[in-house]
């Protein structure tokens, strides 16, 4: 609930900035956005993730961590890409999202290799 209130306050500050100094609005918006993002990440998202990962400890080791981690990474990257796009740099946004996707795939590379090994052991003698 406190967090929702914080978001409303941030929203109000942004509105005030838009009215008071319209020229500085994009810059200040970006600054405040990232500040709030990192605060929320450290206060809510990471502890929550840790709890969830602890909850699914019974799953074979890297999978729960990998799945939740890559989902969060994907979500944050999507958020940032959208933000960049709103500022008018759509191609940069697409690029950053693409890079993060490759990073996520890189995280899964080990598992993919294991999977391919299992499947190819079926067809080779």
């Amino acid at each position, binding site marked *: 609930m406190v967090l929702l209130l914080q978001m409303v306050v941030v929203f109000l500050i942004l509105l005030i900035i838009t009215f008071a100094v319209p020229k500085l609005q994009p810059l200040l918006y970006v600054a405040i956005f990232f500040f709030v993002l990192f605060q929320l990440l450290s206060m809510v998202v990471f502890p929550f993730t840790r709890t969830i990962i602890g909850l699914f400890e019974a*799953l074979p080791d890297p*999978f729960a961590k990998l799945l939740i981690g890559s989902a969060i990474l994907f979500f944050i990257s999507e958020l940032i890409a959208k933000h960049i796009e709103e500022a008018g740099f759509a191609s940069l946004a697409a690029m950053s999202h693409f890079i993060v996707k490759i990073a996520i795939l890189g995280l899964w590379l080990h*598992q993919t290799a294991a999977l391919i090994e*299992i499947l190819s052991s079926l067809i080779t003698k």
Partner: protein
Amino acid sequence: MISFIEMVLGTVLSSFVVVILSTFLALLVDFLFPSFSKWTRMMLIFIVIAVVLQPAFTQLTLIRDIANQISLSFVSIYPILTAAMIAAGGAFGMLNFQPAMLLFANGAIVLTESLLIPLLTAALIFDLVSRILPAVPFTKMADLIRTALLGTVSAVVAAYSIFITVGGTMSWALSGLASEPIKELIRQNVPLIGSFMTDSMGTLGRYSSGAGVFAGGWMITTIWTVALVPSLKTLLTAFFYRWTAALIEPFADKDITGIIDDIGKTLFVLCAISFLIAFAFIYTALFSIILIKLITTMK
């Protein structure tokens, strides 16, 4: 025996729990990150293939290795056995041992190793592909391969029984009147290969009865156990797969239950194939034992 069942039960039960947990995790991630849902499904399939299907794949490679070894040893041992049989003369005639039967039994293994098991692997991979990429389904193909394999194996076993009963050896064990209810029970409760199992058991039983006079009951029991353990293990694993699929169907993804169910079906066919191997093993082992016995008593 108990620890063996516990081992199989443990692997498959733990993978059952893994499926439930990962389904739950996928639900959670889907709720939090809807735009990630396509990936979540993919990763769920990943987990299922890498963790849950491991016992099935181990089973397949195990049977493949056994077939490979038996066919290799057959190729090296067959000339010696045939030569010995000819040297022993008419002593084998009354036991209904024919060199052709030995060739046939082990030829079936060569067939298994070079054709049946690769085909079964293909069926397995077709199943996986049609579940991972629903746009490119190969389910009919996989089913066709499975039915064809089952047909081939049944035909070979029927040929075995013809070979064996031509000599008119006496019946024993499962073909007796008292065992009819057990046969019926197996036939109705083991899906796909139930009647096949009772038939091949009957064939094996008819065959061993003739040899039992020479080799002794305990020896035959030992050979049976050794030969049938891989088949039994495959059968148990297959049962647990289908059971798991049935249990998790209400709350798991349709693809996941489908994969597990298909793998169960494929394992049943693998079990049928492994009966061929078991039969060839029993035949060769008994044959060697009787040969050695004949040679030692003749002196």
